[in-house]
């Protein structure tokens, strides 16, 4: 396993007996002074790669061509191992979300105001490998609206006054609203629930988490309280995933009368995510289903009444329909409330 098509390999090894003997006698691999030219240890490699090694290792074939197509030299000096140096060593530990993997909840940053873009970028964003276009593009792909989300979320205050200010000030956001804003504003004053009913689908794509505190037309909408906080918690749990998984999976929190149901899409929550769940948070599992469906299925199983849901990725049309069928109303691309429950 792991044996590749060696035609793709790029290492041209020129036998050179010098290093083989050195290696065999425990060469000081780590302390050699910089700049000291070591002969290529091809002979040791070729003997190791060409057949069973003296310590019983399996045979490896020497690469047939240069491992790096334009490798400049067949000799190796100490600088060749500089590539294994630690340009950003130590920075990885700065991301403390992973401190909680073993269950230390207190170690997980509770950055309620952290924009979802952080969840996407993961520790790499802070650690500085931003010069890698491949990784950069990977990390930015699935959540292209993260920046606008962050901007919108920051612009959005905790009250409807803030929301109104946001609407009046956010020209870009307004440009994305295809329907009649004055009409919505009227609803917002006279019938907030109707406002959300009508505006909900429209604001999908606006990317803002709309706080429902103060809308207060039903007990359930009051219970839904702050969708922003719910979203922040979803993002916090999502960030426990490794950076690749963060771009591939979704985490959802469904607030219910029995507690907050936490679900992961596809493979469900991983062990690390479960480890940071708090009292009142219930893990759900439904293999290969989307996070929203997983959470709603768990609520149904428990007989819980949904109040609100927040997810870490834009709610897909199928899940949006599922939410609406369950009495929910989308309030943003990633949140919904269940006002009639």
């Amino acid at each position, binding site marked *: *396993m*792991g*044996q590749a098509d*060696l035609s793709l390999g*790029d290492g041209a090894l020129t036998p050179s007996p010098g290093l083989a003997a050195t*290696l065999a006698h425990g*060469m*000081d*691999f*780590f302390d050699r002074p910089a700049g000291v030219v070591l002969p290529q*240890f091809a002979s040791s*490699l070729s003997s*190791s*790669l060409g057949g069973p*090694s003296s*310590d019983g*290792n399996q045979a*490896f074939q020497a*690469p047939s061509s240069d*491992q*790096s*197509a334009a*490798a*400049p030299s067949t000799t*190796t000096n100490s600088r*060749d191992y500089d*590539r*294994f*140096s630690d*340009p*950003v*060593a130590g*920075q*990885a*530990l700065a991301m403390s979300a*992973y401190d909680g*993997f*073993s269950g230390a909840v207190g170690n997980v940053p509770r950055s309620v105001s952290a924009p979802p873009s952080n969840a996407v970028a993961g*520790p*790499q964003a802070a*650690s500085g*490998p931003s010069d*890698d276009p*491949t990784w950069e593009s*990977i990390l930015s792909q*699935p959540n292209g609206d993260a920046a606008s989300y962050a901007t919108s979320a920051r612009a959005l205050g905790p009250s409807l006054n803030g929301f109104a200010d946001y609407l009046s000030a956010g020209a870009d956001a307004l440009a994305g609203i295809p329907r009649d804003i004055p009409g919505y504003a009227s609803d917002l004053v006279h019938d907030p629930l109707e406002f959300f009913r009508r505006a909900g689908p429209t604001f999908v794509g606006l990317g803002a988490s709309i706080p429902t505190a103060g809308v207060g037309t039903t007990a359930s909408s009051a219970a839904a309280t702050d969708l922003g906080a719910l979203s922040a918690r979803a993002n916090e749990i999502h960030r426990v995933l*490794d950076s*690749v*998984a963060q*771009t*591939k*999976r*979704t985490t959802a929190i469904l607030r219910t009368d029995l507690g907050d149901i936490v679900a992961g899409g*596809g*493979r469900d929550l*991983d*062990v*690390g995510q479960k480890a940071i769940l708090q009292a009142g948070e219930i893990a759900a599992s439904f293999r290969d289903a989307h996070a929203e469906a997983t959470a709603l299925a768990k609520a149904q199983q428990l007989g819980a009444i949904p109040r609100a849901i927040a997810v870490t*990725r834009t709610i*897909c049309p199928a899940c949006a329909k599922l939410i609406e069928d369950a009495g929910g109303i989308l309030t943003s691309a990633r949140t919904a409330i269940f006002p009639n429950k």
Partner: protein
Amino acid sequence: MLVAYSRVREPRSFRTNNRQVPVVAMLKYDEPKILDELGALPNFARVAFAAACAERQMADYARVATDLDTFKSVASALDCIWNELLGVPTRDETLTRHLSECMSALPQPESPEGQDTDAITSTAYAIRARLTGVIQEAAWAARHAFDNLYFYLTDPIPSKEFTPEAEQRVLAHPLIQAELQRQRQDLSDLTELVRDKGNVISTILRLRARANEAAQRFTGPPT
């Protein structure tokens, strides 16, 4: 002595087939401690640790792979890392290309993830560890080896039956325990290599050979 894997209960034994079988203490995946130990190693050792984690998953990936070309490209990427660890000059551009191929082999967001996903991701993290020197990248390769088995073992369990007790049984499963033990062994060998300034090539070859051998029974006895 390594402390990357905490013991969660005392050793005991049980009797089966008229034989007393000792049960070693259950190992638990403990990433902060893995990070601590990786942090004490030079980057080439961290890359070797990550590559071994990926290598152990490759046999199963081969079994489930539906696209031979994709498998070849991932296997080639992993070979490239091993070859460099053995001293073959490799340019960053080459590794970046391999990384790109690995990432494009991963399923789209919200698509079902199979065992191949973890093998590919661990390979990507091994490359990433080499390119960036970020300790976490190597640890993530180990996490995906663990995740691979965790999901392999939990997949057949119906959601309604997946209780905390059932999860504990999964975590104590011999396959997961064996993988955690292998990670522990790799870290131990690499720590010893660095401490004693031993023979790098020999250690890397031993690590890879052991990972290859373990790959044949990563998810159970060889078929």
